[in-house]
């Protein structure tokens, strides 16, 4: 019997050792004060990356890691304890809040910027504006050709964000009013992927955060209003939403320092530079 137990214990320990060695990361070992991880929304990513770079320039001993993945991924990482800050372009859902609280995580949100969801097409598309109703009909699959909304007699290629995206959730809420995205839409994992695809697809339509607008894509007016920091700030542009950073409890330590930096005039200038709307 003892031999069998020893054999099984040996196999188990070998497997463990083979994957991670014997130097485990003890959770109560003091976390390095000069490291920080941010995970989540690709909309928040440009702000987080620029802010991290600037902060690290000023504090060379600090190491900040910024990851994308989407709002859902960031929030799940916060609940799992694998990130210090969850970046999100939507508020947390009841299910996520319950899951967090039951695991002893107390999510506290900080609004770091405001953003507009820009509707983008290929620069060769002659269309200048679109109504909310037509936009909804395109994404629900009820309109399939540009000529039905005043464009060329060509098919529409619909590009969307995937379900882990906060931008997708906000778009669904504000435009589709809970409806289903058409089955043939391309579901992409990041704002960048959407912008790149539209820049290469003459018949394409997609949506991105303001930070991803560039000369390679053409933003459409929605209900007669162009997407811009000014129209988002004034409330004229209706496809607008706040951008969040979630921490476990009130921000403290390096997380607090970074968030304070983003909310400072210097940090809010970064927000403005990447195309979003400052909140301070």
């Amino acid at each position, binding site marked *: *019997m003892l031999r*069998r*137990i020893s054999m*099984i*214990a040996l196999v*188990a320990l070998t*497997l*463990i050792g083979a*994957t*991670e060695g014997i130097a*485990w*990361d*003890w*959770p*109560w070992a003091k976390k390095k004060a000069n490291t920080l991880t941010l995970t989540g929304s690709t909309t928040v990513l440009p702000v987080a990356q620029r802010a991290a770079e600037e902060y690290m320039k000023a504090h060379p001993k600090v190491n900040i890691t910024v990851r994308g993945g989407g709002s859902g991924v960031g929030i*799940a990482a916060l*609940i*799992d*304890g*694998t990130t210090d800050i969850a970046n999100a372009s939507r508020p*947390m859902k*009841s*299910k*996520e*809040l*319950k*899951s*967090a*609280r*039951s*695991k*002893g*995580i*107390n*999510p506290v949100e900080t609004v770091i910027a405001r953003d507009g969801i820009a509707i983008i097409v290929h620069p060769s598309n002659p269309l200048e504006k679109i109504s909310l109703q037509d936009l909804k009909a395109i994404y629900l699959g009820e309109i399939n050709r540009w000529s039905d909304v005043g464009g060329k007699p060509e098919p529409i290629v619909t590009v*969307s964000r995937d*379900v882990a995206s906060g931008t997708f959730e906000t778009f*669904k809420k504000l435009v589709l009013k*809970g409806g*289903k*995205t*058409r*089955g043939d*839409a391309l*579901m992409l994992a990041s704002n960048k992927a959407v912008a790149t695809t539209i820049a290469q697809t003459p018949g394409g339509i997609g949506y991105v955060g303001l930070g991803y607008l560039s000369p390679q894509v053409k933003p459409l007016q929605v209900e007669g209003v162009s997407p811009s920091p000014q129209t988002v700030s004034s409330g004229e542009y209706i496809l607008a939403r706040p951008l969040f950073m979630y921490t476990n409890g009130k921000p403290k330590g390096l997380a607090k320092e970074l968030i304070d930096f983003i909310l400072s005039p210097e940090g809010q200038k970064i927000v403005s530079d990447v195309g979003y709307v400052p909140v301070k």
Partner: protein
Amino acid sequence: MRKRLFSLGLTVVISTVVPAFAGVTQFEAYNWMRYTMKLEKENGAYATQESQWALKRGYLRWKHKFTERIDTRVNIDLFSSANGRLDRVETTGITDVDSTEHTVVKKVKPKKNGADIKLKYAYVKLGYLIPQGDITVGLQKFYFGTIYEWKYMTIEKSLEDVEKVCASADYGVSLGGYLPKGYGTWRFQVANGEGYKHTGGDVNTEPAYVADLRFIPIPGLTLGGSALHENVGTKPFEKRQWLSISPRFTSGPIDVWVNFLLGETGDKDEPTKKQGYMIYPTVKLSPNLEVLGRYDHWDPDIDREDDGHNRYIAGFNYHLCKREKGRPGVMIQVNWQGEKGEAEGSEMEHKFMAQLRWEWASPKFGSL
């Protein structure tokens, strides 16, 4: 065999045809391969009563979300059956024409051919009428005590399950949802009461009623309470009335889960009073390694002396990899389990279990 082929065929058809429709489809598979060694004392010395490998769980799960408000799930469990024994002894009593009674003992082959199949879940969750909630119809979780939240981080089942208080799934209707701001969950359920393995003539005319509340006053502290009531019906459940109080505390690497159970079952006028509790602490030593202990006490009849038993569990779980949202991917579980009756002269039964558990999910097909 035909049944099995039909189930397999149905699964293949569902998995190939359904993704073509609107909505989001995902497939999952769980496999739990377990080694069990059981030692009991015989003639003053411990002897091996069981030493075997078996596939204890082989879930095939199909999840399809038609819309944000209509979510469905079907689970089929393929698992080793007949405990791997090649034959068993069956004793039957017969009566001759002259009224003489005989006992016939014979060796028979097992009915199961090494594996079996069962339906575990088949429900639709409708997100209508209840804000932040749903109405769930079909074969679903049984929302009592800790059983519906049990993730098998000890290889042993939850206290309700192992002591046969209730089954982990049942046919019925439930409605529930989230308390505001993540303060917890609530649910009411009306179910057959006999559990997911029973249908047809096994099911009595009286449904079981369940109410469950999980309240999280502060992050990390969950106060759980459930009540189960089933009126008089046919055997084996003539009366069932159970109460569960299950507080849980989680802070950093430490998780302590407690469950108190108090119940009355059996004859309507003279029910048997039962009670038990579980204390289950876990400490996470690293993101991938957790050590755990568990102590169960069970008293099947409060009015009788020394009929209870105690269960002790110690072990560890090591995650070779996790999948999305921290759920198990590949995990090694090792548990020692001891069980001892309260009666004088009872000897401890030892069980050593090692399990390799691998669970995967396909990408999500389609869109909402």
